[in-house]
Every structure is written in structure tokens, then in C-alpha cells.
């Protein structure tokens, strides 16, 4: 009796919902239609791989972090690594790390998630012959060299132009061991306090045995251990649908699943967002203004600081740029607000430090007045530096993606207008640009940029400006800076390390090897039918993304 009544009530409720939907008019009609029940419609770009270690780009990672659970998960607000699969991560000397894994976790195919699952995955990525993009992440772990032997000496090459690489028999990192099934012991080749903060990245996700047995099948239907699961193969052109994994032991997401729609190079989701076919989307530059001015859309907008930076780096190895005042003059001559007006407001924010504010230890503003548009100061500084060489053109080197050309053309216009010098943009194809930049062949300021791998200011300092004049792209070297970086790496606590890294950034600011320009700003719009849209500073991909573990369908 009771049961019947319940059923009737349920039917009545459904009927009500249907009629309500019908009454509210065409808008909700649009939204309800395609997705059906609780499927979120998301945009995604071209995915390279869905097996941990194989992607290394935002699009594969944005899908993977919903399919797999790593040892830690970065907090969406603080960015701190919270334990997810790990129960405890500890080290006495910052060199040997002991990771305890929670008991009873399994992959979606029933295999246990244990220390072996991580070792299996990490060894696969670290093994040089597998040629996986995230290989370099394991260079900090002891035994990496054995899996990635350097090329033989030149005399032994078969072909004088092609380095010959010895086959390596070692396929396992000696630094990894499992004292018991749920304990993972990692030995680094040098102490690194930031090791636990790296562990939320794709490179460190576990992999199931069944997956490695048939990687081709696993690329299509990945076997994860996270809250979402593919039933049907993922198609690189058409996308795919991942549904909620019913047996997920953690906190179940509120949505039933997610459908990823693929937008390949050049295409964007904005038009489809406007027709209601996509739930979260970033408008292209030209549509920002109309989107922000639309009162209906403006309510459903998320604005927050991003983490990717854009920097105009100087060739310190070139005599023209040897004077720090000239570098400061150029930086102060850039009207960052004006450039923003050209390339579309709200896509970036002016940046006055080398580490952006959204990163642990960043946002110190060390660049100060030199990163603020001031024509008088710029001209004074230029005079102090002895003026601009007569008849020379300022050559700005960029890689030739369309966006860069616009950004740097606007920057060049601003410098030219302020300092009365002529400029030209030299666009280069990406691979050329990388090679020439590294070989110190560029004779003018060049584009540089950085996106974080993990939440620590060190990530913006050491890899970009460290290593000495011969190694980094700018040809920058300062003994004080290098000493400070080394001191920070050996710090006792993470707080102390962050502080020391910030001091290193201050030394960098004094030398101004590059002019910070912008930090990306997240500015996404979401549809009427979703709520609790969280854009994760580290996990979210470009073009429109949200935390699928948190998003709610109204």
C-alpha cells in the first residue's frame, strides 16, 4: 500500500517538473534537451593520451584527473596537496619519502590500488624507450639515469649526425620500492622538500595491470580509480561520455556523468554555449565585451586569477640589452592596460612579479614601478642607459600562434610609441623558436611564458632562470640568486623554503632578466542549468572547465 502511494507521489512530482519546465519557456527547453538527466556538457580540445604519463597537456589531464585518483588532490582554494589515495606522506631527510596508501581501494576493473600500481605506472613513464612526454618528471628519482642512458660518445655513432643511444636493460627505477603492499618508498637523487606537492599531477597517477597489458584498448576505455568511468570508447574527434562510477569509495559526484565535446584547433565552444549545447565556456577575445555586457550572462560568470604567465624575456647575452636600465625602460614603456584593450579585456591581468599571486609564495610585486606604464620614467631610464642605438630596429621574437602575434604586436606598438623607436615582430615556427631561443640566437626580446606543474613558487624560478648563463634561455646568471635557490631546496620546512624562494625572486627583480607582462585570468561563463561551478587553479584546462567532482545540475 505504502509503496504504491510513494510511486504515485513520484509520478506526480515528475509531472510537475515536466510542466514547470514547459512553462518556463524555450530557454530551459534548450538546456534540458540534449543532455537529458544529469549529464554535464563540457568542451575539450585534442587529447593526446588517457593513460597517465602519456599526455602532458591540459586536455588529456583535464579528463584524466576525473578518471584517476592520485596520491594527493590539490585543494581548489588553497592549492595545498590534500591526501586522496595516500593516507600519509612523510620523510625525515626530504630525500627518502614514505607514502602510506589507504586500504581497500580498487581500480574500476577490480584490481587493487596498491604500491605496485604506482610503481608500475612510474616505471613505465620513466623508461626512456617508451618515449612518454612526462618522462622528465622522474629525473628527481634515484635510478633515473639507468633507464635513460645518455647517448654514446660521438666516435661510436653509426651515422656522424645521429646520436646513438645504448639500449638499456634496466626498466625499473631503483629509487622505488614497496616494503609492504600499501607502503611506497621513494628515494630521490637529491633532497627536495616540494616532492609531495608534485604528487597530484598526472605523471604520478597509478595504472592498472590490465591497462598495460593492452594499452591501445586502455587509451579508448581507460581503467581508472576515480569517480568517473568510460563505458564507451573515447573518440578523439567526437569526444565521449564518462558516467559516475557507482562503486567509487570516495565522495560521489552529484552529476550522473559528463559528455566531452571536442573542439579542434581554432574552433571554440562559444557559439555552442550560446545555443545551450555546452555548459561551461570561455568566450573568444572578440566576444568578451558583449558577453560581459549581457546582464543575463554576466550573472553566470566566474572570474579568478589564473596561473599561466606571459613574459617578455631579454637576451642578456646580447650587448644591446646588457644595461639593466634599458631593460627597465622597455618594461616601463609597455602599456599593459592598453595591450589588454587590444587583445580583449579580462583575458589577462597585468603582472608585476615573476611568480603570480595564485601560486604559493607568489604575488610579491617585486617588479614594482618598472612594471607600470610610465612614459617619462621609461624615457629617463633609456637616456640613463645611453639611448637606443641609432637606426636599429627593436626585434621582438615570438612563436607564431595567432594570439602571440596580436599580443606582441600591441606590446611593440606601445614600446615604439613611448620610446620613439621602430620595432618589428619576428614570428617563428614553434620548434624553430624553441631551438633558437635555447641556442641564444635571438637578437632581441622574446616571448616567454610559464604554466605551473605544481603549486610552489620554485616552479617559476629555478627551471626558467636557474642553471647558469649557458643553460637558461635569457643567459642569466647571478651567484647570489643560485645560492639562494640552493639554500631554499635544502630548507627544513615548506614555509621556510617558500620564503627563501621569494628572496631569490627579489634578487631576480633587481637584475630584470625579463619583463613580466600578464598573468592569465580565468573568465568562464556557465549555463543556467548548472551550479556550484568551481574552476580549479591547477587542474582546470583552458577554454572552459569546471570541477566535475563539485558541479551540480539544478
Amino acid at each position: 500500500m505504502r509503496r504504491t502511494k510513494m510511486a504515485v507521489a513520484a509520478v506526480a512530482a515528475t509531472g510537475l517538473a515536466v510542466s514547470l519546465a514547459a512553462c518556463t519557456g524555450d530557454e530551459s527547453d534548450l538546456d534540458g534537451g540534449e543532455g537529458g538527466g544529469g549529464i554535464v556538457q563540457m568542451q575539450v580540445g585534442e587529447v593526446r593520451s588517457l593513460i597517465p604519463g602519456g599526455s602532458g597537456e591540459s586536455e588529456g589531464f583535464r579528463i584524466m584527473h576525473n578518471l584517476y585518483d592520485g596520491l594527493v588532490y590539490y585543494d581548489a582554494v588553497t592549492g595545498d596537496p590534500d591526501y586522496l589515495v595516500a593516507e600519509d606522506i612523510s620523510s625525515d631527510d626530504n630525500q627518502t619519502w614514505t607514502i602510506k596508501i589507504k586500504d581497500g581501494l580498487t581500480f574500476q576493473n577490480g584490481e587493487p590500488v596498491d604500491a605496485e600500481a604506482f610503481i608500475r605506472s612510474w616505471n613505465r613513464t620513466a623508461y626512456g624507450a617508451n618515449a612518454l612526454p612526462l618522462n622528465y618528471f622522474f629525473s628527481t628519482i634515484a635510478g633515473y639515469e639507468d633507464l635513460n642512458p645518455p647517448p654514446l660518445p660521438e666516435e661510436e655513432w653509426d651515422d656522424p649526425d645521429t646520436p646513438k643511444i645504448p639500449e638499456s636493460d634496466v626498466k625499473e627505477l631503483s629509487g622505488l620500492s614497496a616494503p609492504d603492499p600499501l607502503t611506497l618508498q621513494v628515494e630521490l637523487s637529491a633532497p627536495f622538500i616540494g616532492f609531495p606537492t608534485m604528487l597530484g599531477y598526472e605523471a604520478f597517477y597509478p595504472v592498472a595491470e590490465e591497462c598495460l597489458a593492452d594499452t591501445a584498448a586502455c587509451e579508448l576505455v581507460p581503467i581508472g580509480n576515480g569517480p568517473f568511468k568510460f563505458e564507451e570508447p573515447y573518440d578523439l574527434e567526437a569526444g565521449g561520455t564518462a558516467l559516475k562510477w557507482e562503486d567509487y569509495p570516495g565522495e560521489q559526484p552529484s552529476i550522473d556523468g559528463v559528455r566531452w565535446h571536442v573542439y579542434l584547433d581554432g574552433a571554440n565552444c562559444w557559439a555552442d554555449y550560446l545555443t545551450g549545447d555546452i555548459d561551461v565556456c570561455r568566450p573568444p577575445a572578440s566576444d568578451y565585451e558583449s558577453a560581459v555586457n549581457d546582464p543575463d550572462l554576466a550573472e553566470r560568470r566566474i572570474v579568478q586569477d589564473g596561473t599561466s604567465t606571459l613574459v617578455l624575456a631579454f637576451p642578456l647575452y646580447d650587448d644591446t640589452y646588457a644595461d639593466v636600465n634599458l631593460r627597465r625602460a622597455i618594461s616601463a614603456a609597455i602599456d599593459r592596460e592598453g595591450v589588454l584593450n587590444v587583445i580583449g579585456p579580462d583575458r589577462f591581468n597585468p603582472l608585476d612579479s615573476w611568480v603570480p599571486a595564485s601560486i604559493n609564495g607568489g604575488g610579491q610585486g617585486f617588479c614594482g614601478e618598472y612594471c607600470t606604464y610610465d612614459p617619462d620614467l621609461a624615457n629617463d631610464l633609456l637616456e640613463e642607459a645611453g639611448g637606443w642605438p641609432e637606426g636599429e630596429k627593436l626585434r621582438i621574437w615570438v612563436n607564431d600562434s595567432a594570439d602571440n602575434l596580436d599580443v606582441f604586436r600591441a606590446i611593440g606598438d606601445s614600446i615604439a610609441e613611448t620610446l620613439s623607436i621602430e620595432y618589428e615582430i619576428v614570428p617563428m615556427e614553434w620548434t624553430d623558436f624553441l631551438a633558437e631561443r635555447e641556442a641564444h640566437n635571438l637578437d632581441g626580446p622574446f616571448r616567454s611564458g610559464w604554466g605551473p606543474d605544481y603549486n610552489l613558487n620554485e616552479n617559476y624560478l629555478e627551471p626558467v632562470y636557474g642553471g647558469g648563463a649557458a643553460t637558461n634561455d635569457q643567459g642569466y646568471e647571478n651567484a647570489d640568486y643560485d645560492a639562494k635557490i640552493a639554500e631554499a631546496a635544502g630548507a627544513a620546512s615548506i614555509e621556510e623554503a617558500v620564503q627563501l624562494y621569494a628572496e631569490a625572486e627579489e634578487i631576480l627583480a633587481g637584475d630584470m632578466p625579463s619583463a613580466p607582462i600578464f598573468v592569465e585570468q580565468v573568465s568562464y561563463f556557465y549555463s543556467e542549468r548548472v551550479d556550484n561551478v568551481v574552476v580549479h587553479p591547477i587542474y582546470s584546462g583552458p577554454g572552459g572547465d569546471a570541477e566535475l567532482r563539485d558541479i551540480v545540475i539544478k
Partner: protein
Amino acid sequence: MGRYVIRRLLQALLTLGIVLFILHYLMALSVQIRGNPAILFFGGERTPDPAMLAQVERLYGLDNGCYDRPGDPCLVPFVERLQNYAAGDFGTTLNGNRDVAALLGIYIPNTLRLFLFSTVTLVVLAMVLGTWAARHRGRLVDHSVRGTTILIDSVPVFLILLAYVYMMAVPLTRWARGIWGTESFMGQVFRPSYNPDYPWTTIVIPGIILGTVGLATLTRLVRASQLENIGADFVRTAKAKGLGQMRITVVHVVRNSMIPIVTGIGYLFAFMLSGAVLTEGVMGIPGMGYMIFNAVQRQEINLVIVGLTISAIVVVVVSLVVDLLYAALDPRIRYE
């Protein structure tokens, strides 16, 4: 006829062979001059470790020394490539390590669908307009048809598409969905981009727009050939024989008017391939034109060669078929 076909086939094979070699040589030159595409494999801001790079080069057959010597035609890799193609192995892509044959399986049907819609649009429009103009020769209709088709042809097709996508698609879709609902044909057809869930519906509009390429040329051909045939001797003979009007029109006028039209379509096919690059790019249709463009950008040697060779085969085959149809349609032409 048989000997003619064989000679044409041999010529076509020779042409394709040369095209293949030129493409190979161009790509080899590009690697030699522009540098190593294997770096692309690593994406990102970092420069890969030399050991890793060498490994990737070996995986993709870029480790041959000839790629370091500008001007070297790289004959050894060329022969290897031909052998692989002959064995049905089209290799894999550098970015994502995907099977090229499988990719073609996805891309080709999309482009065929696009061409189907655009060919139908083109032929129907040109036949109607051309016949209309021919019937009113020298009068206002004739001049306006000519002026309009030239004007339409003057607007680059990709600009029509861009204007459609940026300005018309969204309001049209919202309007159609308000009336017919999201799931209906009308609710999908105006969408601003291709959607793999509706592979036919969402390709209609780009197909129609692409169909305006060469409209002026074909309309002109239809008009001219109809004018020629209406006054031709064999039509007068047929009339004198006392044949019915219907039979004269269908058998004599239309059949003979088809010749230049078939040729025209064959000729326009190459233009459509060019148009497909832009159309597919703008609408996000994963088709051949789109594939070739991106492959060129990324130095996906394999994809470029395979893609352009297929396009070349299509052009060669179409022109062969056109020539043969010529013979079939025109009683005056016989190949011996």
C-alpha cells in the same frame, strides 16, 4: 576505347607517382630546413632530453641521416614508405601516435558528406539558373542571373561561412529550437559547428554554402550549352523527323547539354577540395581538408603525404571519369 582507357590509366599512375615523390621530397626538405618535427612530440615549453628525442625519431622513422643533409632526396625512406603503403600500412601520427588508416576512416566520410551536399546545391542551382537565363536570353533575367552569380562567386566562400557562424548561426538555432525543439532536424541544422552526434544534419549548411563555389562558371556553361543545342542541326533534324517535343528535349537537348556540365563539375572538384580546407576549419568538421591543413602545420609528414595523395587520386580519377563520360554522352566523340 579500351586502349584509350589504358593509356589514360598509365598516365594517371605516372602522375600519381611523381606527385608522391614531390610530396615526399618537399617534406624531407622541410625537415632538413625547418628542423626536427619530433620535438613537437613533447609539446610544452621544455626542450626534450637528446636521448628521448633520438628515441622518438627512431620510432617515427626520422632517424635516417639524410634528414640532416639539405637537398638530399632521402630515397631510402621514400622506398620504405612506398613499401609500407603498398602493404597497407599508412603509419602513425607524430602527435598522439594514431593509426593513419583509422584516421582516414573517420575523415573521409565527413568530407564526402560535405561534397554531396555542395555538389547537389551547385548542380541544382546552376541548372535552374542557367536554363532560366537561356530561356530569356538577352533580356533582364539573363543579365540579372549573370550579375548575381558573378557577385555570389566574388564573395570568398569562407567569408560567407565565417559571417554565418559569427552572426547568424546562434540566433537561427535559438529561434528554430524555440519552435521545433532541440532534438528536431530544424533544431540541429543551423548549429554553428559540426556535431558528431548529428553527422548529417550539421553538415547541411556548410555543404550548401560550399556549393556556391563556381556557381557563376557552371551557370554560364549551362546557359551556353543550352543555347547552342536549342538551335543545333540535330535538334532541327529530330523535329523534322516528327519526334515529340518531350523526346527532343530529353534525348537531344538535355543529354547534349550535360557534356559541358559534367566537365565543369569535374573541373570544379579541385576547387571544392580547396574550399573544404576552409569550410572544415571554420565549422570544425573533422574531414580531409582539415586534416591536411593541420598536418602541414605540424609537419605530420605521413599525414600530409597520405592526405594529398588521396586528394590527387580523387582529382585524377574524377578527370578520367569525366573524359569517359564525355565519350558516353556525346555521340560525336569516340576514342579509338
